[in-house]
């Protein structure tokens, strides 16, 4: 069967991300170590504080979400950083590829890695802290996972734009972006505990709504009547905007000679 040439272009970035992750011991470390630290440090804290089961679930959902989003966005964020670090950016961009090949190809690996982290952390939560991550059922899990991956894609695309504009210096943004977003979306607390001005900002973060949706299965009341509608609506808008931003930055990179400078 002859596959369309575009498939191989997506596949190129998926295979590259997989290989880099497989051959880089730190990438494996990044994927397993931090989630383990995350779930145990937060889980043990809830045990020490002697919290009720529903509050434990509330907090552990936050820990699982943070690590899943963090790992899922990495492959996308690193898609161009690999090329910048290896100074091969011009070889990639002289080839007949477009942004979607990079975004989808690398993003798929991020999605798989994120899913793996979610499963591992979910299993640990069940086994060590009696928190049933499967309680929302297949539909609830699917929507929540999709929401997290969309958020990861938005972060990844924004980091790509920064890499194309600022090069290696943007590496730190790969982490900073997601931490900032996670701080505001009510990861370990309801957003009502945030200062008023930050609460307003939280309304513009789709993950806020997905967390709200997922937590309602654990007995917490919905803060909005249709959290999935708000979450997916915002996510789609932000995805389009971030894709547009990356496209604009790439166009500017062609004009400013950034692709060459980052290959030197």
């Amino acid at each position: 069967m002859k596959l369309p040439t575009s498939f191989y272009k997506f596949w190129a970035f998926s295979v590259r991300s997989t290989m880099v992750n497989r051959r880089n011991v730190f990438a494996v470390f990044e994927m397993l170590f931090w989630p383990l630290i995350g779930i145990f440090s937060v889980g043990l804290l809830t045990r020490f504080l002697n919290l009720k089961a529903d509050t434990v679930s509330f907090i552990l959902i936050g820990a699982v979400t943070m690590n899943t989003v963090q790992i899922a966005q990495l492959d996308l964020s690193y898609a161009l950083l690999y090329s910048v670090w290896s100074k091969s950016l011009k070889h990639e961009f002289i080839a007949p590829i477009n942004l979607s090949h990079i975004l989808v190809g690398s993003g798929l690996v991020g999605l798989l890695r994120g899913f793996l982290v979610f499963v591992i952390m979910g299993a640990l939560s069940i086994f060590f802290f009696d928190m049933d991550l499967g309680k929302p059922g297949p539909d609830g899990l699917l929507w929540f996972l999709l929401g997290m991956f969309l958020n990861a894609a938005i972060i990844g695309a924004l980091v790509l734009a920064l890499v194309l504009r600022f090069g290696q210096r943007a590496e730190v943004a790969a982490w900073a972006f997601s931490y900032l977003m996670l701080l505001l979306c009510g990861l370990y607390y309801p957003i009502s505990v945030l200062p008023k001005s930050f609460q307003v900002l939280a309304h513009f973060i789709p993950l806020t709504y997905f967390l709200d949706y997922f937590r309602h299965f654990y007995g917490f009341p919905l803060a909005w009547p249709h959290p999935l509608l708000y979450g997916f609506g915002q996510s789609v808008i932000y995805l389009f905007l971030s894709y547009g931003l990356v496209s604009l930055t790439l166009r500017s990179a062609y004009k400013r000679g950034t692709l060459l400078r980052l290959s030197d």
Partner: protein
Amino acid sequence: MTAAIAADGISKAFHTGLWGPAKQVLTDIDLQVASGAIFGVLGPNGAGKTTLISILATLLRPDTGRATVLGFDVVREAARLKERINLAASGAHFLWCLTVEDNLKFYGRLYGLGGRRLRDRVASLLELFGLGEFRQTTFERLSTGLKQRLALAKALINDPELLFLDEPTSGLDQDMAQHIREEILRLNRETGVTMLLTTHNLREAEMLCTEVAFLKQGRLVTGGRIPDLQKRLGLGDHLSLHFQDSPAPLDYARLPGVLTHRVADSRVELVLDRADERLPAILEAIFLTDKKLARIKVKPVDLEEIYREVTH
């Protein structure tokens, strides 16, 4: 012969910082490269060679002017052009943790190759560049020469009609550089692929290029076939006359076709417009003086002299 590359009035300036002043890197470049040629763009460091090649290779947008490569506009039809071109640059850089084979497969996929076609293409390139035994070696463990061979192999992964070679032998030892040059010549001979090569190694340009252009401070100062440039610039052949004792007492400046002359001990150095035409008359004049010649040496003008002439 059809032009593989046609550039008309290409200019480019880079800004330093957001509001910094613009530095003009290329000014009003016109260029024609014939299909199947190996065309050399020569010039000192900072002359704008890499900027020019990058514009033609669709990696950089010109500020003004227009260029077509293989008939495609480098800005408006870049996507279609990219299918047909490729680039090998000095100081080969690829992803450090991928093997030689993985790197070639990665770039092959970017050109839409897959399955058996990709495997066959990679296998033939590994063989062509003697990389078979290093197929499982990661890029970071390759020697400089092997890295450069991989860069050339990668540049051929899509079987390009036009190849950009940006200082392809820079940083290589003499043997490896020579090997790469022979590969370039062989490729051009066997596949007819057009090549645009930048170098500041004049010997390399002399060995490889059918035509050259000289860049100086972003301007194309002259260009053409090397013999034509000689004629146009009035650069002649070198004639060395070694006498047995003292030089023949002649007014060398007045001899036919002499452009410059220098007398040193028993040796006279002449630069002639055309040695093949002028030599009989000069030898006859010497014969009439009864002075005996020990040795005569004729050397055609080389690219280095043209380079000196046009860049200083």
